[in-house]
């Protein structure tokens, strides 16, 4: 199958069990008697439900994990630059070591020579997704660099800081457990140390695992429902938009990742009252519904006007500006909130996947850069583009196609 197996964990993992646990815990807070009745009506066998931490996502497959995988609660993005003296063989060794680490850690096993293998025992849907910057591809196969693997064009509203800039390698580490993320990142950095240096580490988070029903659209720290319009993994539409159909052979079945570190200016955002906040985006804060609709997934009516003859969704509204007439200009978003307590900065680690960022992402960003009232409260301070190779089979490593050209 092309999609990574979700949560099989060797058959130990029961989604139903976890849902039941959540329900029981919620009821238990209200009344012990209800809990007793609830468990009495359930023909569940003995013992508590299996912990969700046992859930695992296979590293191996035709696609890399961590893209179609329903977003885990936590992410750590590792931005690494290759050492000047690391040659193609060094890159191969690096990717081979990291691939072996991820294969084991994803199964809930310690990495080879893991000094803290006990910390690996809770994978909690750990995935590690590899992205290659232009620098890495050039180091291995200079003729196989896709045309779009380059810096995004400049945007007027960006205030990019080099400290969050493009790196040669990106490792997107996701898990529902932050301890698992910390351990996996430590293992990966240990094995990357001989060939790379860390440029940046960016941590992000969503709601904790189990806090909300599966499939709930995330909220960003501005309080907005963020990511309503998103192609659904497993659909033809998603496959067409995300997976690479042309370009260099090593990337067939891969995709691209655009990372934008978008700082949000919460101090001034807080000065806005709710009607103004909703007008800026074009959606209601309560449920994310468009100002012309009833529920989150209603299609916005961009032509609808109010009594005064003005469009209900303003010309400057974020959702109007983000939408293109061209259905090819769409991306798959999979972002995370971030907070930097030291600087007080917070915002969104905007992560999106698309077959070609120049074809799909850049036109959207250009429209937003030209006009989007939300720009008053958000500023991109980091930007990077990566080629995301297809997945690998057992014993292989991500990116091995670069050596088969």
């Amino acid at each position, binding site marked *: 199958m092309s999609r990574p197996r979700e949560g099989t964990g060797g058959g130990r993992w029961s989604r139903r069990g976890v849902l039941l646990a959540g329900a029981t815990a919620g009821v238990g807070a209200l009344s012990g008697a209800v809990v007793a009745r609830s468990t009495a009506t359930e023909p569940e066998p003995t013992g508590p439900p299996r912990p969700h931490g046992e859930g695992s996502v296979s590293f191996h497959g035709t696609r890399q994990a961590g893209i179609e995988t329903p977003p885990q609660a936590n992410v750590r993005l590792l931005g690494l630059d290759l050492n000047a003296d690391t040659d193609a063989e060094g890159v*191969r060794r690096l990717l081979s070591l990291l691939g072996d680490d991820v294969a084991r850690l994803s199964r809930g096993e310690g990495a*080879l*020579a893991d*000094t803290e293998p006990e910390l690996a025992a809770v994978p909690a849907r750990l995935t590690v997704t590899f992205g290659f910057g232009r620098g890495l591809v050039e180091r291995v196969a200079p003729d196989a660099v896709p045309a779009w693997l380059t810096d995004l064009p400049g945007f007027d509203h960006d205030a990019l800081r080099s400290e969050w800039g493009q790196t040669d390698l990106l490792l997107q580490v996701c898990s529902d457990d932050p301890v698992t993320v910390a351990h996996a990142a430590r293992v990966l950095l240990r*094995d990357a*140390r*001989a060939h790379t240096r860390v440029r940046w580490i960016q941590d992000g988070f969503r709601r904790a695992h189990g806090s909300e029903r599966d499939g709930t659209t995330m909220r960003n720290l501005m309080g907005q429902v963020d990511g309503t319009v998103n192609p659904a993994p497993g659909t033809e539409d998603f496959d067409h938009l995300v997976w690479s159909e042309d370009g260099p052979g090593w990337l067939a079945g891969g995709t691209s990742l655009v990372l934008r570190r978008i700082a949000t200016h919460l101090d001034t955002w807080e000065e806005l009252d709710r009607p103004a906040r909703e007008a800026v985006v074009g959606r209601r804060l309560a449920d994310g519904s468009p100002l012309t609709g009833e529920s989150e997934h209603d299609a916005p009516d961009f032509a609808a006007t109010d009594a005064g003859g003005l469009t209900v969704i303003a010309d400057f509204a974020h959702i109007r500006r983000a939408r293109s007439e061209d259905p090819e200009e769409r991306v798959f978003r999979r972002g995370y909130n971030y907070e930097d307590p030291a600087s007080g900065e917070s915002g969104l680690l905007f992560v999106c996947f698309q077959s070609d960022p120049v074809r799909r992402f850049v036109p959207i960003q250009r429209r937003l850069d030209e006009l989007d009232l939300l720009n008053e409260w958000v500023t991109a301070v980091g930007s990077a583009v990566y080629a995301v190779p297809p997945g690998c089979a057992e014993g292989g490593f991500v990116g091995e196609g670069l050596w088969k050209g």
Partner: protein
Amino acid sequence: MPVHPRTRVLGAVLALSLALTGCGDGADDDAGPREGGTEEDGATRDSPAADSLTLDDPWIKAATVEDGMTAVFGEMVNDGDQEVTVVAASHEDADTVELHEVTTQGADATMREREGGFPIPANGTLPLEPGGNHIMLMGLTTDLEPGAESTVTVELSDGSTTTFTAVVKEHAGANEEYEGDHEDHGGDH
């Protein structure tokens, strides 16, 4: 080319084997301990001991020529019905290879050559790990860089040999002092 020190190690082990054989008098061939299974009486085994031995997850701690020493780890697995004993080892990039054990007192670990090699019980395993048994590489002739792979050859008491491909990994541990060598050497093998 200098005399390969492995020969020296093998010689010592052979002497040990002969001593054991003499001790056991070679009387009960079929039920005899495998330590006696040298070439002379190795016929009691249907197949070479090496055929039942594997080293799972073999890895070597990254080290440079300047470091001089490092070690091979993994889990030795004997899936045969008779005990096998690893009596020697060699590595393409090391002048000398020894089979070591580590004794730890408090936080001080001391390693020394293990007498009798590594016996692995029938259908059993023997872990080689930092702080425990390991295959010691000394006199490195080339840097062993993370992610590289190299070949380790082990010899068993019946004279059969087998090879394993081990991957080089960064590792901060495995810094045991060599016995009687506390003063003047960094101990980082």
